[in-house]
């Protein structure tokens, strides 16, 4: 999709982390997030750089690169950047677009308020984090 979506609310409604929100809530969320476009090979998150943000992928594909190793692939509905924002530390990996990427972005300092205002989104994010942790633990086992 070359063109930005006509209805941001419709787009949000299709993402798992926003599945529990009513239409007015989706509209409010759509107004608080900004859409960004990243060309293929463009860096989205930069290892070691302060002041980053929380990203939710609308379309496209990105990879997480720690050092020189690809550690994960991210697609529509996935989110990233929350760990460095929540911990107040610079990201420990790069995230790079491998296909043109559209994301919704929330500046880091607004994440806490966003999660507190939208507890159902917060719960969905928590479930996703638990799944990541379980997979990582299994991987180590």
């Amino acid at each position, binding site marked *: 999709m070359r063109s930005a979506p*006509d209805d*941001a609310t419709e787009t949000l409604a299709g993402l798992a982390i926003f599945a529990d929100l009513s239409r*007015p809530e989706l509209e409010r969320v759509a107004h608080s997030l*900004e859409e960004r476009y990243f060309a293929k090979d463009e860096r989205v998150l930069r290892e*070691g750089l302060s002041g980053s943000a929380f990203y939710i992928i609308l379309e496209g594909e990105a990879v997480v690169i720690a050092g020189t190793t690809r550690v994960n692939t991210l697609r529509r509905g996935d989110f990233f950047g929350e760990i460095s924002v929540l911990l107040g530390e610079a990201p420990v990996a790069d995230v790079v677009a491998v296909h*043109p990427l559209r994301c919704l972005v929330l*500046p880091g*300092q607004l994440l806490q308020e966003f999660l507190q205002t939208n507890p159902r989104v917060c719960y969905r994010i928590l479930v996703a984090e638990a799944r990541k942790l379980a997979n990582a633990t299994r991987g180590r086992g």
Partner: protein
Amino acid sequence: MGSGPGGLQISYSLSRLGVRHAVISADESAGGMFRRWPFFQRLLSWTKPYAPFERGTREYERYDWNSLLPIEREHAALMTTIMDGSSYYPSRPEMERNLATFAERTGVAVRFGCRWTATRRDGDRWVLETTDGEFRCQVPVFAVGVSQPWRPQIPGIEDVPHYADTRPAETYAGRRVFIIGKENSGFELATGLLQWAKQIVLASPSPAKLSINTRSLVGVRARYVQPYEDHVLAGGVIVLDASIERIERREGHFHVHTRKADAASDLVFEVDDVIAATGFTSPIQDLPNLGVATVGRNKLPAQTPFWESSTVPGVYFGGTIHQASPGLRKHGIPSNSGGVNGHRYNGRILARHIAAKHFEVSPERPVISRAELVSFLLTEATNAPELWHQKAYLARVIVRDDKRGIVDDGVQPLQHVLDTGGANSVAITLEENAAGEIYPVLYTCRDGATSEHPLPTNALHDFRTSEHEKAVIAAVEGVLL
């Protein structure tokens, strides 16, 4: 394309670099959106006639958000020579005159009344179809503004006038006015209608942001906060956080159905006028059909750090469209590329980039002595207008050149600097954290590895201290020294 501040600055800068080009504009005179707006005839961007630096100096530009940037000192700070002294915000006609005077005095030649209608590729050339025939070029730059009315998809909104169609203020006397949108254009109208309207409602789904809280140009500017104060003091203005479900036109009035995010029931307003202060998009014609990707609610072209289409190489943008090349947005602070004070610098850098990349014009790169380096960097951090107007977006770049030594590589987009790496280099910019502290940051690139070095803040924003000198020496040692 375009004869607003963006087009004029880029044309001027290309001329001084010796790049042949043509400027066309659908308008009949220079000035772009300032030929019509702001509706209530006074700008939001200031020019201080009296400032800590002399008018016409580079340092003075920090205090003058409205003048374009010539090399010749006699054409600098033009805005100050045109304002009547009644306000540090120029009036709309003064701003229009400022831009037209710049074009006239610096010799920017524009073919007015020439509307770009379509675009196509012919071998290695771009062909621009216009009402005056076809233009062929190696590099098109579209500085066509963000002034085409945009409306969200709300049932019934097609019957509602846009901000652009607002009537003279007195025609709203004694009427109930519902304004959709809580950004600057909505609050501007509300401010201007306070003395006329019987009732004013401002509504949109998310709460109004105020610039003094966001610490950026995102948010309602202080000048337009009066309706908000009226609201919080229960003076009668209603500022509502609710989605607009639908608008019904009845005989002589409207019913606006709204719904708050946390309530199940609709709240219906019966009003005499509805105005969609819902923002603007850019008239980029057929560019999306040629593959130009767009981004965001108002579908501006997605751009690289050098303001080139992210998807169609060789297509560049100018002026306020640069707001869709957001840079790093560190700590959430946006660039000022949506305003003249920001994009005038982008325009100068873009001209230099186009000249070097497409026309083999090598920009000047002066040598800096080792003894001057630290002082040079800290003076830039303290006084460089580019860094103050475009925090974490533009950076002064110093590189180590094997033959010439330490070289000033000019002001560049910070994101470009961080993503290219290469030679040993240092970039200095200004940043602002969530606590509102402004401080210089050095980015060093050593053997391909980039590091970030935040320097201490300073209450007076003067970074020429021994503490800062020590921090700079520690950061650049082994990179440039």
